[in-house]
């Protein structure tokens, strides 16, 4: 009986709940896209603020993030000796596909070679979290750990084989989704990365074959990640490296962070715009739906007044009903947005993308937002209704 009554009551509000759900779903979906971009920007920012990146001076397009040229072993050694440096990890960073079109995108897939004999100096990424399998160890060859998006788009899992420059690599681990650049990384040992570099770069191959340059294997670095001692100001240390080690590109962490922020300023502005628009449209839609649902029942409220309902009793009932409808609609909307976003993400992951991030703060915010607007709209409607005489409320209800 109770269940039947509940079903009957819900059926009466079905369209209202559906209307609210659609509005909330829109806000949540747009918010989740904004959260995804924020996570991407924040992740990159966190990475660059966690280390000093030093690259060889040059224009090597293959150098990826550090955007430099060759950083020979002597320079690496010189950097290591600068006062305040706690650790230096040689790295090779290469685009997986060195075509211009791939390189110019924000979603490039990168091969990253780590010197695994030294710990990762990045303060915020001392280790990269592995979802499945393990991270690379010193001495690993022809083994790789891949980012979550890369794994999804290439159909890789632990134990799978990945062919890079004609060589077969065993996938020993897949990283957790980090919502930033490492999601598209292919991590190998630095020795393997150096082999790939030579294989990818005809000029380097020619140079090495000619014997014109006295290069050893450990000279083939695109850059190093530098860590600092406790209490050291990373910006000051970066300037010190720049002064004491000539012929290298030193990224000042705060400058790079600011550069990243300014380069993503458009996205940030876009997000603010989308968010504001979503909140205004979704909010107006929700408030209008709730108020309309309350006014639709104006005759019932008039009857209740006639039966003796006081202002408080009636307002309480209006608010309770409106909140129940809002919460139902809000929860349904959140569920709908998550279902829709997850479906789209499953499709997008085939190309290594993830468009939505349903963060707890977004979901909590959506529910609070719905409740606040639902309450405000219901309070407004209740105030209007209790001010009407019962006869007028019944008349208007009959006329509607």
């Amino acid at each position, binding site marked *: *009986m109770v269940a039947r*009554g509940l079903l*009957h*009551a819900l059926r*009466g509000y079905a369209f209202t709940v559906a209307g609210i759900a659609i509005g909330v779903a829109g806000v949540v979906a747009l918010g989740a896209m904004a959260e995804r971009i924020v996570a991407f920007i924040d992740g990159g920012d966190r990475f660059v603020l966690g280390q000093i990146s030093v690259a060889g001076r040059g224009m090597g397009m293959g150098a990826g993030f550090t955007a430099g040229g060759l950083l020979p072993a002597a320079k690496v050694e010189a950097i290591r000796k600068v006062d305040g440096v706690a650790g230096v990890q040689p790295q090779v960073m290469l685009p997986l596909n060195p075509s211009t079109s791939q390189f110019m995108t924000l979603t490039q897939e990168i091969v990253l070679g780590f010197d695994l004999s030294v710990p990762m100096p990045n303060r915020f990424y001392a280790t990269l979290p592995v979802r499945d399998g393990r991270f690379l160890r010193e001495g690993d060859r022809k083994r790789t750990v891949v980012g979550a998006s890369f794994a999804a788009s290439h159909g890789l899992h632990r134990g799978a084989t990945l062919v890079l420059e004609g060589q077969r690599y065993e996938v020993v681990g897949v990283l957790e989704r980090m919502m930033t650049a490492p999601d598209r990384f292919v991590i190998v040992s630095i020795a393997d990365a150096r082999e790939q570099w030579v294989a990818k770069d005809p000029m380097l191959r020619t140079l090495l074959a000619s014997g014109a340059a006295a290069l050893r294997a450990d000279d083939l670095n695109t850059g190093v990640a530098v860590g600092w001692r406790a209490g050291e100001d990373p910006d000051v240390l970066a300037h010190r490296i720049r002064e004491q080690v000539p012929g290298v590109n030193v990224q000042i962490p705060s400058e790079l962070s600011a550069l990243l922020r300014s380069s993503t300023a458009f996205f940030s502005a876009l997000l603010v715009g989308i968010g504001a628009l979503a909140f205004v449209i979704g909010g107006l839609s929700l408030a209008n739906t709730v108020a309309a649902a309350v006014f639709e029942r104006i*005759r*019932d409220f008039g*009857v*209740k*007044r*006639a*039966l*003796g*309902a*006081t*202002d*408080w*009793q009636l307002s309480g009932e209006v608010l309770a009903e409106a909140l129940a409808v809002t919460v139902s609609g809000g929860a349904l909307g959140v569920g709908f947005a998550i279902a829709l976003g997850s479906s789209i993400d499953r499709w997008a992951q085939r190309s290594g993308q993830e468009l939505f991030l349903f963060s707890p703060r977004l979901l909590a915010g959506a529910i609070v937002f719905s409740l606040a607007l639902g309450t405000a709209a219901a309070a407004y409607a209740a105030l209007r209704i*209790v001010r009407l*005489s*019962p*006869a*007028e409320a*019944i008349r208007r209800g*009959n006329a509607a």
Partner: protein
Amino acid sequence: MPPEPALRARGLVKRFPAPAGPSIEILRGVDLEVGPGDMVVIEGPSGSGKSTLLNVLGLLEEPEAGEIWFGDRAVSRLSRSARSRERGRWLGFVFQAFLLLPSLTAIENVLLAARYVGRAGGDVRRRAELLLERLGVAHRRDHYPAQLSGGEQQRVAFCRAILNDPPLLLADEPTGNLDDDNGAVILAGLRDRARAGGAVVVVSHRAEAAHDATAVFTLAGGALTRRQSVKEATR
């Protein structure tokens, strides 16, 4: 000493704004007194203000002037919530359009009258079931208004009106939407209320209503005029 009237009204004035020009005065100083056991019928042409008078008497609408007493209490100038409380404990309404809440079952509609006067529990429920049984709609107790005929809806509405055993029952064209048989059931119910000592005011076109009335008034031009009821004529 005669019993205190259940309802007294003195000098009631009610105006409605007109689309253009001066407002329309629907009630022009109406006086009325209804005692326990009285069944007062108010007649009048359509648009004469009968329903408005009933709304004003039932505190559903505020008069521009005049005073209303329930028993010995002046109630027409009370606050909104105080008027609601007075309605809850002193009045029962029967409307022409039944006005049952569509989302509630028949028994829930009846019990609604108890909710706002703070009554609850098994006794109230038992009384509601008893009333539904007396009115012949007990088998419909768990049905929603949309599943009931007009006659059944009005019987349920009548049960709601008398659940709290109010001293005063106001009925606005209670048989207006009913067939003869159902109309007779409702009129009998109103008559029984008066016989049991309740005060009843009915706005009705039906001759049968006036037949049982202790007093019959005609509302025309905003004023009530008493005419001889059948009971008075045959006394």
